Structures are given as structure tokens and as C-alpha cells.
């Protein structure tokens, strides 16, 4: 119960921060959407990093390392250090400058201007929403996977059907409610403040959990030695897992080299994340990006190395024959964790190995911080693109006062939060990591569009349409083939992201070359002379 109280106190603190940041809110739509371009280097780093690290980073990475081993780090973390920073440098700074020069607050405004096409905006809007919603779901589902096991057995009479754990519907209401409150209060500025605070919380709590878990396992050396050896290499192998009930199931461990290579396309997705675009635009100047570009790979390392190690260590801990497992009180927790429950690995390790409820509460708050620091930006960005790219674009900005514009954005945020909440309850058993990879794959497939728009003068409107359509058709084909969100690879392990990206790039190239070059005067507006 003490752990739950600590989590509740953290959520109250966050609400307090929302009230504080509302006092800094200038009350204009520009401040609501892009914080009046006033965010400095440290806050930009924290908000961009906090936004990219969601449940996927903490809950997903630990679970995936538990399944696949150390290859998880190279698959997503070290490649992201290189590719994310490249996207910030090559795409982020340029989009910031174009956004500032032309007064854009959404990507769609930029694409409409660059390709002189309203229709492209209407094509991109539903795609952006459709791809962002799974990302939102990852966060809310991640919070179920963390708070559910943590509260197991606390309320046996009130929540008998969940074994005494706080049920998913209640967790969802609380998490969405807290995030909604501070996004409502101050928009982008509140999100930047909350993200900075939450990023600091989840980095420090992650390190604390890592230290305490390793200590409980007898130190770093002993912790790694008790792990399953198949998880310490990337060699593909099959492992027989014995469950609590005595049943056995096979688990594929390791990574194929071709999977490792094709995963390099997935981090490209940050180049098209609409919520990241919005964070880029909050920057005070281009120089503000410098710290983010350099420190982002290091921040990823600080968060991911401990998480991957905890996941690998869990392979020893969750072994029914493990001496560690026998020595800790774990009533109700399944030995030989099945694949469907890997999202709960971090939470189970924290609860099972760290006895102190205050520490358990703090670490759980840290995991929730990582989740909520992404949710806020995604909620906000969907409100922003709906308001600017649909309502104001169709009806005309002059028809609305600034206050009405903010009210429209807030209304759409509310609708999205409600839909996300319902969707997360329906999909609460999905694997957070796999769902995230599908979402990233979709966005990665769209990056040829933004790269061509920024660096290729010859890119045409028809090429832009072809690129979006080709990558999305490819994505949807693989997505439905995976059973709508499962783990999926082509042939010997090629990731769909690589094929979607190539489809988008080839379509852009061929169709642009086959169609009439765009008007030079228009293109000149988007290129530095």
C-alpha cells in the first residue's frame, strides 16, 4: 500500500506542476502550440528525449531483453543514438528554420506549402492520427503492465476479479486524467516543463532500480552470471521454458544479422513523428539543438543499458529452478513468465527483488514518468494538427478568436484521450514492444517524403503522393499479414520498415522524375540560398 501512496503522491506532484506551468502560459494559441519558440537547450533535450522514450524504452526494452537477450540494445538503442541524432540534425533543424520563417506549427502545413497541395494534407492527416494512436496505446497499456503487478493483492475485496490489483480501467482513467490536466492547462509549455521533470525522474529512478536489483542479486557480476547464457549473445537459438504449471514452451532467443541490419530503418521514424516536430518548433534558436544532438545518444545509453541488463538478469530470476526466485516472496507471480506477460518483467523484478515499498513506489513512479512524458506530447500534437490542418484550414483562421482556437485544440485532445482509453482497454494484452515497432515502421516509411521535401528541389507533388501511398500500402500489407500488430519479419528476418522505406523512396524518385518539375519560385522559399 505504501508503494501505491508514493505513486499517488507523484501524480499529485505532477498535477501541481501543471498548475505552476499554467501560470507561465501566455494564453495565446502560439504559446499553446509551440511555447512561443522559447524553449532553451536543456529543456529541449529533456522534452525531446522524454518524448522518444516511452513505455517502449523502459517496459518494452526490459521485456524484449528477457525474450531475445542483449541484442535488444543494438536493435533499438545504439542505432537510435546514430539515426535519431541524424534526424535532429538533418531534418529537425531545417524544419525548425522553415517553421519559424513561414510560421508553421504542423508538418502538414509545411508539406502543403512545399508541394502546393491541399489534398496532400488531407491524405496525411488521417495517416498521422492512425499511426500516432498506437503510440498512445503503448503508453496507456504500459501503465497497466506496471501498476497491475505492483498493486497485486492490495485490494482483495474491492477488486476480486483482478486478484486484488487495481484494474486496468481505473489505472487508465488516472493516467489519462493527469496527463490531460496539464496538457489542458498550458499546452506545449506545460508539456515541456512536465517532460523535463519526468525525464529527470525516470532516468534517476531507472538507475536506482538498476543499482538495487543488482545489489539484491549479489552484485553486478553475480547478477549476470545467474542469467541464462543464451541471452548473453546474439546467436539465434531456441529455448525451452518451463512454466509454473509444469507445461513447457519454446522461445526464440537471439537476433538474425539481417534483422539487426534492417532494424536500422526503424529509428528513422523520429523524422516524421508529428509530436517531435512540435517539440522542435518550441526551440528558441537553431543553436538550441546542439545539446540535443550530442547528448541524445548518451541519454539513450544511460536508460537502455540498465533496462537491457535487468531483462537479461530476469531470465535467471524467472527460472523455476533459480535459487534467487525461491528466496523471494512472489505469491501469485508466474514462474517461467510466458511471452504474453513479458511487458511486466520490469515491474515484477522491482516488486519481487526490492523489498522497500517506498523504493518500489518511487521506481514505479519513474516508469510512469517515462510513459506520461510521451503521452502528453502525443495528445497535444493531435489536437494541434486537427485544429490547424483541418478546422482552421477549412473554415479560415479569421473566423475564430485565439481563445476559440485553443478551445478547439483542447476539445480534440479530449476526444483523442477518450478513444485512446477505450482502445487501450480492448488491447491491454498486446506486447508493447511489437506494437511500438509497427507504429515506428509506419512513420519510418514516410521519411523519404520529408527528406525529399527538404533536400531535393526536383521532388514533385505527384512524387509526394506516390511516396505516401506506396509506403502506406506496403505497411498495411505487412501489418495485416502480422495479424494486426504481432511480431513480424520478412524472409529470414528482414524488418518491414526497410521495405516500406524503400517503397516510399523509389516511388518518390520515379514519379518525381516522370512529372513536371515544381515551380522554382515556390521551391526557393524552402531552400537556403
Amino acid at each position, binding site marked *: 500500500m505504501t508503494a501505491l501512496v508514493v505513486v499517488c503522491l507523484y501524480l499529485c506532484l505532477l498535477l501541481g506542476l501543471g498548475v505552476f506551468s499554467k501560470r507561465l502560459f501566455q494564453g495565446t494559441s502560439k504559446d499553446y502550440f509551440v511555447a512561443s519558440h522559447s524553449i532553451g537547450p536543456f529543456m529541449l533535450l529533456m522534452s525531446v528525449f522524454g518524448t522518444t522514450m516511452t513505455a517502449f524504452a523502459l517496459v518494452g526494452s526490459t521485456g524484449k531483453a528477457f525474450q531475445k537477450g542483449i541484442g535488444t540494445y543494438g536493435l533499438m538503442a545504439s542505432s537510435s543514438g*546514430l539515426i535519431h541524432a541524424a534526424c535532429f540534425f538533418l531534418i529537425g533543424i531545417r524544419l525548425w528554420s522553415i517553421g519559424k520563417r513561414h510560421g508553421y506549427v504542423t508538418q502538414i502545413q509545411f508539406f502543403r506549402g512545399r508541394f502546393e497541395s491541399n489534398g496532400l494534407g488531407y491524405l496525411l492527416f488521417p495517416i498521422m492520427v492512425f499511426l500516432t494512436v498506437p503510440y498512445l496505446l503503448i503508453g496507456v497499456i504500459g501503465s497497466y503492465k506496471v501498476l497491475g503487478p505492483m498493486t497485486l493483492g492490495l485490494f482483495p475485496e474491492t477488486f476480486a476479479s483482478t486478484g486484488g490489483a487495481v484494474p486496468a480501467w481505473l489505472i487508465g482513467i488516472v493516467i489519462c486524467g493527469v496527463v490531460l490536466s496539464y496538457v489542458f492547462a498550458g499546452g506545449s509549455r506545460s508539456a515541456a516543463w512536465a517532460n523535463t521533470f519526468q525525464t529527470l525522474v525516470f532516468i534517476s529512478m531507472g538507475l536506482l532500480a538498476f543499482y538495487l536489483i543488482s545489489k539484491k542479486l549479489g552484485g553486478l557480476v553475480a547478477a549476470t552470471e545467474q542469467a541464462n547464457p543464451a541471452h548473453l549473445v546474439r*546467436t539465434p537459438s531456441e529455448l525451452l521454458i518451463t512454466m509454473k504449471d509444469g507445461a513447457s514452451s519454446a522461445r526464440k532467443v537471439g537476433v538474425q544479422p539481417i534483422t539487426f541490419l534492417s532494424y536500422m530503418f526503424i529509428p528513422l521514424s523520429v523524422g516524421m513523428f508529428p509530436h517531435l516536430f512540435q517539440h522542435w518548433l518550441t526551440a528558441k534558436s*537553431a543553436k538550441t539543438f546542439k545539446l540535443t544532438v*550530442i547528448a541524445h545518444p548518451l541519454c539513450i545509453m544511460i536508460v537502455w543499458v540498465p533496462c537491457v*541488463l535487468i531483462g537479461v538478469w530476469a531470465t535467471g530470476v524467472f527460472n523455476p529452478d533459480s535459487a534467487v526466485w525461491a528466496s523471494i516472496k512472489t505469491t501469485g507471480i508466474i514462474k517461467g513468465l510466458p511471452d504474453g506477460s513479458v511487458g511486466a518483467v520490469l515491474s515484477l523484478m522491482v516488486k519481487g527483488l526490492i523489498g522497500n515499498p517506498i523504493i518500489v513506489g518511487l521506481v514505479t513512479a519513474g516508469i510512469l514518468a517515462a510513459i506520461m512524458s510521451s503521452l502528453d506530447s502525443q495528445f497535444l500534437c493531435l489536437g494541434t494538427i486537427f485544429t490547424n490542418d483541418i478546422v482552421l484550414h477549412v473554415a479560415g*483562421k479569421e473566423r475564430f478568436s485565439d481563445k476559440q482556437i485553443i478551445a478547439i485544440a483542447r476539445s480534440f485532445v479530449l476526444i483523442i484521450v477518450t478513444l485512446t482509453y477505450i482502445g487501450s482497454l480492448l488491447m491491454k494484452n498486446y506486447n508493447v514492444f511489437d506494437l511500438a515497432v509497427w507504429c515506428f515502421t509506419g512513420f519510418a516509411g514516410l521519411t523519404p517524403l520529408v527528406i525529399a521535401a527538404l533536400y531535393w528541389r526536383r521532388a514533385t507533388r505527384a512524387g509526394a503522393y506516390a511516396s505516401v501511398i506506396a509506403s502506406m500500402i506496403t505497411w498495411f500489407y505487412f501489418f495485416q499479414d502480422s495479424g494486426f500488430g504481432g511480431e513480424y519479419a520478412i524472409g529470414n528476418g528482414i524488418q518491414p520498415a526497410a521495405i516500406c522505406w524503400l517503397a516510399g523512396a523509389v516511388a518518390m524518385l520515379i514519379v518525381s522524375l516522370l512529372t513536371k518539375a515544381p515551380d522554382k519560385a515556390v521551391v526557393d522559399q524552402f531552400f537556403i540560398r
Partner: protein
Amino acid sequence: MAIVSERIRFESGLIAQRRTFRNVKYFVIILFLLLGALHQDLWNWDKGNLILGFLPTGLAYHAAYSIVVAIFWGFVVLFAWPTRIEAWAEEGREGDDA
């Protein structure tokens, strides 16, 4: 006459600066591709030995790789920063879409 030679010196300085920037740019692209290749450390695939007694080789390599990547981006920020972009962004009048 003095003004003309001053102008020529200024322009040739600008050209030299741009040439240096272009050379650095090519160097950065080569380094980036090299880092992309180094990410595929096939030679570590089966190595199960532990660095410092607790870090599996494959993980230790990629953790070190992250640090090298940060140093690379530090180099890029120092020597290949697009300085003109700021002035270009400020040149345009901010629209009022927001």
C-alpha cells in the same frame, strides 16, 4: 581601389570558408557511413565473455558505440554546424497560423 581589393579579399575568404565547410561535410558523411557499418558487429555475435565481469561483449561494444556516436555528433556540431540557417529563419516574417 582599396574598396575593390577589400571586396575581393572578403569574397575569396568566403569561398575558402565554403570549400572548407564542403570538405568537412564530406568527411562527416564518410564518418557517418563508417559508424553505420560499425554498428553491424558480426564479429561479436557469438562472444559470450564478460567485460568487467558483468557486461556481455555484445552489450559492452554497443554501449561504447553509443559514446563514440556522441563524440561524432560533438564533432559535427563543432565543425559542420549550418550557421546560415539561423539568419535565414529570422529573415522571413513569421506567419500567424498559430
